[in-house]
């Protein structure tokens, strides 16, 4: 069992130093950019080389690093980490016709740069890995972390999901039809009947171990799937709920619904089997769509199971539970990659 003891998040909303989700930042040009803090804890000589994904990943980790005396490694999920630097280096290749090139952006272009910089910053020689499986990059990091604490009792890890919007990955995904053609304001996000979503980014970092006492939350179960068939996902979701014996009357369904009409049938067919007691809530209007958005959902779950009163703007349907004891997250990335996570207090 994976227990979360600390959670930190840099997102487009006020989630970092003070948490305020009542006042929502709306997208600009269909993009929700993170509000970057000042990075006092990152040495200037490291900061100057970091691309945005590395910066927000390391930045979100800093508060947790202060709170732990012994850490056994870093387990990071990121789909696009390093994309911005990759294109910067690519531009040099073209501009100088493969001539004399500066290597800085090449070194930072590898997806493992965040985990690498974290180990450099802390001098930590523990486990160090980067999962990059696009919409299931973070989920594989969660599975990895759960195995690590099972195999090595008493160890703790920083687990993170990090992705940024660069001009380039926005453009590639836009041309591929994953972002909306028409401009969307925050209010109408879920009611647009068109293809595509809005772009988002963020870094959510968790301190995890196998220690139940004083934990913020536990990841009770996680399942990942690849499919383009809503019925298959619905049946798998039903099976997951049965297998985990989820008490739907004290549960929140946190849906990854993202305003894309093509993905909506997956979410609504999962809602159909949840009964009338459950609260249904949504989060992508806060963080936008990005491959590791499920890490934002997990951070949000940690808040909702502890101190945060659910903001009204998140609620799609009110349920009967006054105080939720579990949260069921379903996320669908690009109609192909799906995950269920069951989070309990």
């Amino acid at each position, binding site marked *: 069992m994976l227990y979360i003891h600390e959670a930190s998040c840099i997102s487009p909303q006020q989630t970092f130093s003070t948490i305020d989700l009542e006042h929502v930042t709306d997208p600009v040009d269909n993009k929700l950019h993170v509000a970057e803090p000042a990075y006092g804890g990152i040495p200037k000589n490291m900061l100057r080389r970091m691309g945005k994904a590395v910066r927000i990943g390391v930045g979100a980790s800093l508060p947790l690093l202060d709170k732990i005396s012994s850490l056994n490694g870093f387990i990071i999920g990121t789909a696009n980490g390093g994309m911005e630097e990759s294109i910067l280096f690519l531009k040099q290749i073209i501009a100088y016709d493969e001539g004399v090139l500066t290597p800085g952006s090449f070194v930072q272009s590898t997806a493992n740069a965040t*985990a690498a910089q974290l180990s*450099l910053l802390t001098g930590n*020689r523990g486990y160090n890995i*980067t999962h990059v499986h696009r919409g299931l990059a973070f989920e594989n990091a969660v599975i*990895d972390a759960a195995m690590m604490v099972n195999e090595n009792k008493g160890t703790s890890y920083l687990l993170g999901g990090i992705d940024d919007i660069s001009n380039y990955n926005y*453009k590639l995904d836009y041309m591929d039809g994953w972002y909306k053609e028409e401009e969307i304001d925050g209010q109408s996000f879920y009611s647009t009947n068109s293809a595509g979503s809005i772009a988002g980014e963020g870094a959510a970092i968790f301190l995890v171990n196998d220690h139940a006492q004083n934990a913020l939350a536990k990841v009770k179960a996680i399942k990942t799937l690849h499919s383009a068939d809503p019925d298959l996902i619905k049946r798998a979701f039903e099976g997951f709920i049965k297998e985990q014996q989820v008490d739907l009357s004290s549960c929140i369904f946190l849906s990854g619904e993202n305003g894309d009409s093509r993905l909506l049938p997956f979410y609504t067919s999962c809602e159909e089997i949840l009964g009338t007691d459950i609260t249904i809530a949504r989060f992508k209007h806060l963080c936008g769509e990005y491959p590791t958005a499920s890490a934002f959902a997990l951070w949000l779950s940690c808040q909702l199971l502890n101190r945060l009163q659910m903001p009204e703007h998140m609620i799609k349907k009110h349920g009967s539970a006054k105080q939720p004891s579990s949260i069921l997250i379903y996320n669908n990335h690009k109609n192909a990659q799906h995950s269920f996570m069951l989070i309990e207090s």
Partner: protein
Amino acid sequence: MSRIFVTGVGIISAIGNSLNENHASLLNGKCGISYVNNFPSKYASELPFGAIQTGNDALKDKLGISNPSVTRTTLLAIHAANDAVEDAALTKDELTSADTAFIGATTVGGMCLTDELYRDANENYKESPYLSSYDCASVFLYLQEYYHLNGIIDTINTACSSSANAIMYGARLIKNGLAKRAIVGGADSLSKFTINGFNALHILSDEVCTPFDEGRKGLNLGEGAAFLVLEKEEDVAGKKIYAEVTGYHNTSDAFHPSSLSDNGEGPFLSMQGALRSAQLQPNDIDFINAHGTGTENNDEAESRAMIRIFNTPPPFASTKSNTGHTLGAAGAIESVYSILSIVNQEIYPGLHFTKPIQATGLEPVVVAKQIPVNHVMSNSFGFGGNCTSLIFSKA
């Protein structure tokens, strides 16, 4: 926790398109590193590479793939994975079962389409077939569809140790009961992107690489793919068994974004941890397939770390002198070579070695020979300090 066995392997590299071809090349000391003519980089004629001679069209024909968005990295991955699956005689039901995991590694991924990515990232070319082909995950998302996989699927990128970590992750999934079997490995293809990147770091040799040689000038990039089928003890009765995965350890060198610490602290810890996890003593290791890239930094740091662990290291060599450095595929390719050593009770030489590094004095194996091989260690170290060592043992 269950013991994990290798029941199938598949490989394609600059020294052969099959396991048998690779084995023959290792025995004969064949070097697959040369100048490539048909590659779209100005360095193609200036620097030697470990290129696979089979082109994309021939690979597509052979594999029956016509989809234009499929990249060379993916083609190499399918070529090797097909062989591994067939070698392990996995049935269609086993392959598509929810308890079959597929863990792939790559660092180049779809970025072998360097020029296409530049165009698509800067121009409006909506008809481009490659829009979802550039990331690392695209390779294994395609394989998921190709094989109709339903278990845990993952893509790992820890630079040059990526596929060693994929093997480790797959073994752990089985041990933790999250999969019954796992297909694990990696693939990378030559790209203008990595060639220019390594060149900008001044670590590409303009001659054939000479791992562990005093006069080494750097590495040669290569390409390839390799996959292993891992199954647990309870399920392998009556099956062909190549070797057992007995040890693995992943650690960070925590020293520099692109160089190893002088004393090889990360390599030392990964080798030490792998021995601990295999419950073996240093003198149990019969052969080390070293990371041995041929750079000034790696070979000396790795040598120092080997001396710290083993005092007098066992026979060792780097097969990157045969294949070039295949980045995300290297850990898997070299695991296959380690397994060949165990199966055939023989060790394979490092090529082009003449004079030991003055500071460490270590000499790699320079001729193939028959010796008793019970345990082989395979090292993989990557940018960002990612170090992983694996141990394969005679089953």
